[in-house]
């Protein structure tokens, strides 16, 4: 099992490495640190020869990769790769496809100073085009221990079942509890209505969870501990704030990839969750889940070895 980590020699890159280590520890995954350098080409540079500059860039990139390798504890197998492409996102996706990676890990923050998560340009390009799940490390993520809990954001959209199956698989393989999370945006005026909506959401989530658990075809003892959490607020962000989050938790969210190209990969709700979320988020492509039944050898992320 391989995770491709999009590394750059800044705080964002460190966040990504830390998250990748946390994710790898529970599953014995190996990491591929990929540093993307821009293609040095002639068309955009007058009076500036390419050859020697490429060399300096490579030398610097190599130094950065050496530093990155040193961030990874010795128990986690890691390789470093230097790639170039039209864009960082392009280079990362190509690397992920080449290695048959199960996950792309990146630091997602831009230079915005207000929110923990405000999506950087590489991350947002990836979220529009990646074909494997993308894990987004929040600003200043420094944890390097195995996960302690999986949360799964449950929407009413079609495909929620697939995401839930996927989440159960991850929780089982990592032997951690699963929490199904429902976030509601309600205008505060009517407490009774709010309570009603929350109850309905809870019922909906429990129903889906119950359907997913036996349906996953697992043997006894392979069901994770589960719980359902419903939070509401005047905004999604407030709802996220009201939930308790463990340090070692990640939130799985399904993508809403409508079309290739310019379409929004990350739904608007998911983007807003991301803005308030204190823990990492893993965005799972919708067609990714649909592939699972075709791969009977694995109930989890393809390639994850069964216990």
């Amino acid at each position: 099992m391989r995770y491709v980590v999009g590394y750059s020699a800044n705080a964002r890159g460190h966040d990504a490495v830390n998250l990748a280590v946390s994710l790898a520890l529970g599953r014995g995954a190996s990491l591929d640190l990929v540093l993307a350098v821009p293609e040095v080409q002639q068309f955009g540079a007058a009076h500036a020869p390419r050859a020697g500059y490429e060399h300096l860039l490579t030398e610097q990139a190599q130094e950065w990769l050496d530093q990155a390798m040193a961030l990874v504890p010795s128990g986690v197998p890691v390789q470093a790769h230097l790639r170039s492409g039209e864009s960082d996102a392009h280079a990362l996706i190509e690397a992920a496809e080449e290695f048959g990676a199960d996950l792309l890990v990146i630091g997602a923050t831009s230079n915005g100073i207000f929110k923990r998560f405000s999506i950087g340009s590489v991350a947002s390009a990836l979220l529009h085009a990646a074909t494997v799940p993308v894990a987004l490390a929040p600003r200043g993520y420094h944890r390097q221990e195995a996960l302690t809990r999986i949360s799964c954001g449950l929407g009413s959209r079609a495909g929620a079942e697939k995401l839930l199956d996927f989440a159960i698989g991850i929780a089982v393989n990592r032997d951690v509890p699963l929490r199904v999370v429902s976030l509601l945006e309600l205008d505060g005026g009517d407490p009774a209505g709010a309570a009603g909506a929350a109850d309905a959401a809870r019922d909906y989530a429990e129903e889906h969870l119950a359907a997913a658990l036996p349906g996953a075809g697992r043997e006894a003892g392979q069901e994770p501990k589960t719980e359902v959490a419903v939070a509401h607020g005047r905004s999604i962000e407030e709802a996220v704030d009201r939930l308790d989050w463990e340090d070692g938790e990640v939130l799985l969210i399904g993508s809403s990839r409508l079309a290739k190209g310019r379409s929004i990969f990350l739904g608007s709700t998911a983007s807003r969750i991301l803005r308030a979320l204190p823990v990492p988020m893993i965005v799972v492509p919708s067609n990714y889940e649909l592939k699972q039944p075709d791969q009977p050898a694995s109930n989890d992320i393809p390639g994850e070895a069964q216990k």
Partner: protein
Amino acid sequence: MSTEHGMSKTSHAGPHKGEHGENHHGLSEKGLKAGSVGLIGAVVIGVSCIAPAYTLTAALGPTVAEVGVQLPAVFLVGFIPMLLVAFGYRELNNAMPDAGTSFTWASRAFGPWIGWMGGWGLIAATIIVLSNLAAVAVDFFYLMLGQIFGNPDLADLTKNLPLNIATTLVFITLACWISYRGMETTKTVQYVLVGFQLLVLGWFAVAAFSHVANGTAFDATAISPDWFNPFAVGSFSAFAAGVSLSIFIYWGWDVTLTMNEETKNPEKTPGRAATVTVLVIVIIYMTVALATLSYAGVGDTGLGAGNPENQGSIFAVLAGPVMGPFAILMSLAILSSSAASLQSTFVSPARTLLSMGHYKALPQKFSQISPTYKSPSYATIASAAAAAAFYVITRTTSENALWDTITALGMMICFYYGITALACVWFFRAQAFTGAHAFFFKFLAPLLGGVILLVMFVKTAYDSMDPQYGSGSSIGGLGLVFILGMGVILLGVVLMLVMAKVRPEFFKGTVLSRGN
């Protein structure tokens, strides 16, 4: 680190070895692809580096001021030293491909002091051209606004000094920011820009000749064979000044010769591309030069090409009368090509500064590469600051900043190309007589080219002391062009001495050693 930590083994893609000390311990560098540029692509790169629309508008006027109707002759003769030097440049590039180019080569040949000044000349030339490019872009930006809204007052805004300086600084900042973010003009954009420039320049020439034929030209002048006779130029001073300006119009052509691994057929493509590029450029220069002279004459009144008012940017004045309502295309062509060149030229001083920082010839900061954008960060910003400062100083002290910067630029190019060419001769001195090819390309051609350029440099520098030189601006009885040119070189000497004090390693010759 545990044994599980491994680097995937793939050999280093580049041809570059040894120079910087150690070889790489195998990093996979997939995607650093070579051989992607074909003949047409290489020609487009060559033409886009020369940026003919911008070059002509900037250099035609000042050259006419020096040599009058012998403009075509000087444009043709000016190519000879460029060609000779470019041969040497190619030899050096093949032997030592390096981002520092002139700096590195001159250091290897002549040691750290001359090497440092060679690098300084290259940086100064590119900084000066940056400020000129930005200024030309700003002129045509306002001219185009005036043409779009049919309001000549808008075009005149560029003559408002504070506004002009502010807009130029904005252009420089924008180009710097784009460069800092590591964004480059793409292949498609360059194809479009180059095609558009050639089309508009052709259009201008045809329109000018048809005015001449219809008797509607400003000062119809019959083409005479004398125009092509370089010996008809009045004085050696004028000739030297003209040649050093025409070095500027071919500046950038050498890139076609030095593209090797990136071309599809390294044996043939660079040579062919260089030939095709120079043919395209010479044809377009000759056509436009003849069209301009035929239409406007060299008189010093009205639209005449000899009118000092017109010489900073000739097309800004002539495009309207010649092309009528389509003059806006000329504005668009020059604006787009100078803006694109502004951005792509930023790469050059930034990479040279980066390389000098890397070799400890400049403070450590210059060797920084942005971890986020992977571009030379400090060096790019330093280049922008220098270009902005140069522009502000020139604009506020000169009566015709564009004219004087171009003249100073021609001098600076002669200076560092001259050093580079002689570096080639000296570096390869042991091989000079080992065969006909080596004798010509590593010895004779660069020697002749280098000597010609350094003679032009000294002559122009000497003449420019005259307060009437160039646009006729002067400070303290010395011509402004001299002050600009020599001032920049002296500043280089001072900075070099400071650096030798602060960071002596490079100047002890231990970082970049001399010899083969």
